[in-house]
């Protein structure tokens, strides 16, 4: 099957700086593809090149197999939901949604029918006569999507459209966007710096850093099997250390951190004596009151609670071990540790499989 969108060796330079550095990817039809990266990583540049507002320095962009480099932005079969939505404030909702159809020279009656259909589709029937500023943030969001979807684009681009919403609404819109994508059955390319948005909605995520793609994969791939230290550090949270490999044993290694903490970890292509970076997620460390409960773990430590960071389901404790290293550990919400307080002695443990390690320069 031809991919809906395909970028080949895409490069964009602004003067001396390379904003996008040889990026290639393809998006299969009907999927939800996200580009995730910190601000300034070049993701917006990719988006604007696909939409046609920027010309790539080199490389090709193909939609349904055909190159669109010579197609001006108003003729490309892609539509875009802008970061601040860019709804036309001087028009009503219906006029906004009908804008693209009018540009195609469609008849009045048919435009009206299509607009009504789109409003039904996004669950806001009968608001066509209202002005843009009479809508709530979430409603505007849906109108911006409907405005693109009436044109039946091959690919819908979304440029951090949830950024301006408050937290509660953002959580809600994540679910809704995914549902809209399924309902319209159109390819969505979504860019964001918010990993939770990308993880929740996407079929495939590309993690981008400094103009390059670090890893492309499903949310699970990125979370459990990061390819690079950047991905390991960027997705989710981690305790991270620098250290040296002391022994290699198949896929597992024995290492010691700079502060003297000994640990078993997983990592490929590492030689004895090599320097390494180690990542352990707070949620993969098990907290226990006695050492017996941790017998199944490769790494076990005893320490003191130095601080309780209460944050509901995401609560953590900071545990300081004998060598003075501080680890962040997720606090289970099963009630077992509800009496835990500062100064308490605890045991912690984690498996070698949960400690990911990468060679470091």
């Amino acid at each position: 099957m031809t991919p809906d969108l395909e970028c080949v060796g895409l490069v964009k330079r602004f003067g001396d700086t390379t904003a996008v550095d040889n990026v290639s990817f393809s998006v299969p039809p009907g999927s939800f593809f996200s580009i995730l990266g910190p601000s300034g990583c070049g993701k917006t540049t990719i988006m604007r090149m696909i939409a046609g507002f920027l010309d790539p320095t080199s490389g090709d962009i193909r939609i349904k197999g055909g190159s669109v480099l010579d197609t001006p932005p108003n003729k490309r079969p892609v539509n875009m939901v802008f970061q601040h939505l860019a709804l036309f404030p001087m028009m009503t909702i219906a006029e906004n949604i009908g804008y693209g159809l009018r540009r195609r020279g469609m008849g009045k009656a048919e435009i009206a029918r299509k607009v009504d259909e789109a409003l039904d589709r996004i669950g806001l029937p009968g608001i066509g006569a209202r002005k843009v500023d009479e809508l709530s943030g979430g409603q505007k969001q849906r109108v911006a999507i409907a405005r693109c979807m009436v044109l039946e684009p091959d690919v819908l681009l979304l440029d951090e459209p949830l950024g301006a919403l408050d937290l509660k609404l953002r959580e809600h819109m994540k679910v809704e966007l995914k549902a809209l994508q399924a309902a319209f059955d159109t390819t969505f390319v979504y860019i964001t710096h918010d990993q939770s948005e990308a993880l929740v909605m996407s079929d495939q995520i590309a993690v981008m850093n400094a103009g390059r793609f670090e890893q492309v994969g499903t949310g699970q791939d990125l979370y459990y099997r990061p390819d690079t230290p950047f991905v390991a550090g960027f997705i989710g949270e981690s305790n991270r250390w620098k250290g040296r490999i002391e022994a290699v044993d198949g896929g597992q290694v024995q290492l010691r951190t700079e502060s003297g903490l000994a640990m078993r970890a997983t990592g490929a292509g590492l030689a004895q004596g090599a320097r390494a970076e180690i990542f352990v997620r707070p949620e993969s460390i098990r907290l226990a009151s006695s050492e017996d409960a941790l017998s199944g773990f490769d790494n076990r430590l005893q320490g003191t609670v130095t601080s309780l960071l209460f944050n509901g389901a995401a609560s953590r404790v900071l545990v300081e071990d004998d060598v003075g290293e501080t680890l962040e550990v997720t606090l289970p919400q099963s009630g077992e540790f509800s009496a835990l307080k500062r100064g308490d002695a605890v045991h912690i443990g984690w498996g070698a499989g949960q400690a990911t390690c990468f060679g470091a320069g």
Partner: protein
Amino acid sequence: MIPTIPTSRAFRLTYGAYVALFFLYLALPLTVVAVFAFNDSQFPSLPWDGFTWAWFFGTERPQIGVFHERGILRAVGTSAFVAGCVAVLSVAVGTTNAFLFNRYEFRGKGLLYVLMLLPLVIPGIVLGISILIFSSTLANGIWDLAQMDIQALRPGLLLVILGQFSFITTIATLVISARLQKFDRTLEEAALNLGADRLTAVRTITLPFLAPAMVGAVVVAFLMSFENFNTTLMLVGSDAPLTIAMFDRLKEGSTPLLNAVSLLLMLGSSLLALLVILFQRRP
């Protein structure tokens, strides 16, 4: 010295009285002009000889009212024609200027911008004489070359229009630029993305957004042209706009007819100004 900071009663009263006095100073000349438009006398001064509408509607000498005084009516027509031309021209050029300065980076942009501001700091009379001199140089040159006398280049309405246009355009440019700067460029990109070409995007999105500023600029330009005196004085030919016609009469001695014209002028311009304010209040 703001309401939240306590001040003495005496200070507050003095301050209030000062502000009241200021507004009295502002209102005084206009009020007397308006009041004496109704004085049933040959002179717009005391004693008060009773109330009359004659200076508006009178048909017989010596009290010929505004609406029956040919000279004044013709001058109003001339002024309206000039002001209309100036308003349309200056807003058109002001709009293209605003787009140029807002959308393009080019060499010499800073210099052109300062040049664009200059008409604001050139005295109106100097602006008038420089255009008078240049147009007559042109006319003489054409005569020497081709023995043609271009009447349009001699003092007259065309020169009055160009003279007023030369500085009112700066104001139109500033008014429209200020609005264009607030325009969110992504709206235009969104229009392109939805299938509009550049010109259509500007026509359907940017110009409607600019409309309030353009209407405001038309009215301001119209009023400024209507009441302009200095530049017009140097360029006027045989068709005198209203301010010049009134000035000529004022030099000969005034009658309440001038008060009546002035009162109508005040009403007219306040009404226009009010319209603009209402128009721009509308979201």
